[in-house]
């Protein structure tokens, strides 16, 4: 997995946690610089806790802190908060998204970009963010394009896109990955409680899912 620089682009704090935190940690451990660009602060999230830990107005700060904590857990020291607003990405001027991501790519010259797969993201922000990343990379001359690992998350992903091109076993960094998930407490508390009370069988579907990170390499057909 030799890479020069990895750029991860997702719209919400915690989007990295389930699908790619293990791979991000592996890159960091190998000394590969990893940048996490998070487009929004997930400020429209619905989980306010019971008892409440946030209001609609304080949630962005809660999420900002959790995002920083998650990066610290993974050892990712370059976190870029892009300042867009949760649930608005699909309504933004696409050129604004493209130029924002384009500047990051110009600056970092990543050899690998990781994002969702456009159209297979379930959440409109996931699709809009991924589409902007793909559009940005499309505009780079073929020979200079970084590799793009995409994460389709719809249940039909394998039926439509085939098997993933890259499957990483992240068992060796599983503890870090679970801590990353835990760092996003406002979003993952219920699940973390299940992880901690031991009710999750190590062979359960969710644990099998967490131990493996699968990516589809985006094909820029031209």
């Amino acid at each position, binding site marked *: 997995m030799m890479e020069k620089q990895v750029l991860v682009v997702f719209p919400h704090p915690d989007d990295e946690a389930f699908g790619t935190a293990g791979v991000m940690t592996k890159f960091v451990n190998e000394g590969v610089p990893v940048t996490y660009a998070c487009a929004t602060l997930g400020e*429209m999230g*619905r*989980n*306010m*806790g*019971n*008892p*409440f830990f946030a*209001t*609609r*107005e304080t949630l*962005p700060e809660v999420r900002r802190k959790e995002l920083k904590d998650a990066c610290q857990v993974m050892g990712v020291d370059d976190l870029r908060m892009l300042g867009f607003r949760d*649930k608005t990405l699909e309504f933004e001027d696409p050129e604004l998204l493209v130029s924002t991501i384009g500047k990051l790519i110009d600056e970092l010259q990543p050899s690998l970009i990781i994002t969702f797969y456009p159209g297979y993201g*379930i*959440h*409109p*922000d996931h699709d809009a963010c991924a589409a902007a990343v793909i559009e940005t990379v499309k505009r780079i001359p073929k020979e200079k394009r970084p590799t793009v690992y995409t994460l389709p998350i719809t249940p039909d992903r394998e039926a439509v896109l085939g098997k993933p091109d890259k499957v990483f076993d992240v068992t060796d960094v599983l503890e870090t990955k679970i801590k990353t998930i835990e760092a996003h407490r406002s979003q993952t508390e*219920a699940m973390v409680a299940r992880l901690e009370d031991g009710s999750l069988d190590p062979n359960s579907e969710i644990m099998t899912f967490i131990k493996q990170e699968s990516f589809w390499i985006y094909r820029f057909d031209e």
Partner: protein
Amino acid sequence: MKPIHIEEVQKILETFENQDLYFHLETTSGAYAAQDKEKLAVGAYIRNGSLRFSNVKMAGSGPFRVGFKLNEGWMYAEGITDYQLDDGRLLMAGHDSSGRLAVAVQLSYTPFD
């Protein structure tokens, strides 16, 4: 936030009458609701809309409804369970039994961030 006390919130709401306000109105089922094919993902959101109302009333026995008679129209929300007055802003929200926000109505004299 704390549970709605109808008389108390009614009094606070009335202090906002006939003034230029910024409001936040939101309702959501969550973007993932449609994963369950039986459900329709719904939501509406307006942030920092301008609003002036002449009358306001909280109704119901909880969860509550709140209705605003605007200069040229109406606005209302249903399912309100909790509120908080912070820095002169009134935040009201409806949370489900697991603490998830389903509706929010907020009023402020200055724009929300």
